[in-house]
C-alpha cells in the first residue's frame, strides 16, 4: 500500500520517503502501521511516500536493506537514513526519527 499520489509535474517531490517492514497481521506490525499512518496524516499532511512491505510475502527488499526484525521503519528521506525498530508506540522516538517536533 502506498499513501499519497505521486507528485505531478511542477510539484515539489514528497519530503518523506518511508518504508515500513511488517510481518503480515501480527500484533506489533499492525500497531506500527496504525501509528505511522496516523502521524503521516496528522503531522505530515500525507506529504510522504510510504511503502509497506510484508516480509512474509516478499523478503527481498528487507534483505537488500539488511532488515533483521519486523516491524522496522526505514526513513530514506530526509537523509541521513534512519531505522526505527518496534511498533512505533513511542511517539517521541518516532518524531525524532522523522525530524519533527513532538506535539505537546
Amino acid at each position, binding site marked *: 500500500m502506498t499513501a499519497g499520489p505521486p507528485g505531478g509535474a511542477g510539484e515539489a517531490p514528497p519530503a518523506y520517503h518511508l518504508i515500513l517492514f*511488517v*510481518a*503480515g497481521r*501480527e*500484533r*506489533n*506490525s499492525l500497531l506500527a502501521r496504525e501509528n505511522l499512518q496516523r502521524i503521516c496524516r496528522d503531522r505530515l499532511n500525507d506529504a510522504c511516500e510510504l511503502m509497506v512491505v510484508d*516480509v*512474509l510475502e516478499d*523478503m527481498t527488499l*528487507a*534483505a537488500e536493506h539488511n*532488515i*533483521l*526484525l*519486523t*516491524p522496522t521503519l526505514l526513513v530514506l528521506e530526509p537523509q541521513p537514513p534512519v*531505522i526505527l*525498530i*518496534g*511498533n512505533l*508506540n513511542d511517539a517521541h522516538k518516532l518524531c525524532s526519527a522523522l525530524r519533527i517536533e513532538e506535539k505537546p
Partner: protein
Amino acid sequence: MLDRLQRAEEYIEALRREEVDAVIGRENILVLSLQKMQRQLHLSEERYRSIVENQSEFVCRRTPDGVITFVNEAYGRFFGHPRAELIGRRFDPAGIDADAGAPGAPIGFKGPDGTIVPTEFECRAVIDGRHRWIRWIEKAIVDEHGQPFEIQCVGRDITRQKEDAQTLQSAHIELAATVKALEDVNRELSEYSAAVTCEIKEQIRAVLNYAAFLHEDLEGELKEEQQQYLDGLKTAASRGHALVEDLKSFAQVGKHPEECEAVDLDRLVKETIAAQHLRPVIDVVVPDAWPELEVQPTLLKMILGQLISNAVKFNTSDKKRIEVGWQHAAAGRIEIFVRDNGIGIDAKLQHLIFGIFKRLHVESAGEGTGIGLAIAGKAARLLGGTLRCDSVPGTGSTFTLDLPSVMSPRS
C-alpha cells in the same frame, strides 16, 4: 563497527520490549509470538525437568573433559551423594571405583551419515559394599560447528538382570550336567539290562536243554507225577524265556527314534490287518476313507497290530467281529479305535491291563506274557498320544488311540 554494535543494541532492546513480530533469516522468517514462545519454553522446561527427575534412570551432564554440570535426583540417590555435592566433580561411570567395562567408541563419534552415535557400555560399581552393574548410554551434544560442548549420560541399574543372567547360566550348566548324568545312567541301565537278559536267556536255555535231555533219557520210565513235573519245568522255562524276550522288546520300543512322515492310514491299517493273518471267518470292518497323518509309522503299526491281535485273542464269540475306525477329536486331534465283540474287561480291572505282564484272562489268552498292551501304551506315549479302554464284560471292548498329529485331510 559502532553502527553494527548500536544496531545490535537496538535489536536487543526491541526484543526486550516485546515489540518484535518476526526475525528475518537468510532463507526464511521466524514469526515470533513472544509470549506464546515464552509460555511454550516454560512448559518444555517443566516437561523436561519432570521427565528427568521422575525417572529411575540416572541422568548426568558433563563437560567434554569430564566435569559434572548437572545430575538428576536418581543419580544422587544411587551413588549416595547429595546432588549439590556432585556438581563440579569429575564424572566416573562407576561412581566410586572404576572397574570392568571400558567405553566403546569415543564420545562424539560421528556415524556414516554424520549423526552422533551414542556410546553404550556397562561397568561394575561398588555401592555400599555391594557390586552393582550399570549400563550407560553417552551422547555428545554438539554446537553448530559439530564440536561437543556437553556430554549427556543416562545410566540404568542392570544388577538384577546381570544376576538373573548369571543364575540362569548356572542353572543351564547344572541342567546340562544332570542331563549328561541321566544319559550316562540310561546307557548303563540299557547295557546292564541287555547283559542281564542275555545271561538270563542263557540260563533258561540251559534249563530247557537239560529238561529236554532228561525227557529223552527217561522217556517211558517216568511216573505220571514225575512226567508232570518235567513238563511243568519245560513250560516254566519256556515262559521265562518268552518273558525275557518281551521285556527286551518293551525296552526297545522307541529306542531308535523314527522320523514323522505323512502316512496313508488306509494302506497302513490294511497292511497291519494283513500281517495278522486272520482267518476269513473273522469279520473285519474298516472305513472307506482315512485321512493322511504325520506320524511315526512303525510305532503306529505296533499299536494297531497289538490291538487287533487282542481283539481276536480275547474273543469267544461264534462270529468274531473287529471294527477299525477313526474320528475327529477336540483341538485338532484324531482318535483311531479298534472295537471287538470279545469277552470284555471288568471295569474294576481296566486300569491294570496296561501294566507289564498283567494278564487278566489266563485261561483264554493262551500264549503271551501280558506285555502286549504295555508295549502299545509305551508306543502311544512316544507318539505324543494316549491309549484308553472302554469295555463291557460279555459285550466287547473298544481301545482308542488319541493322537495329536497334524492332519492333511484326503480330498
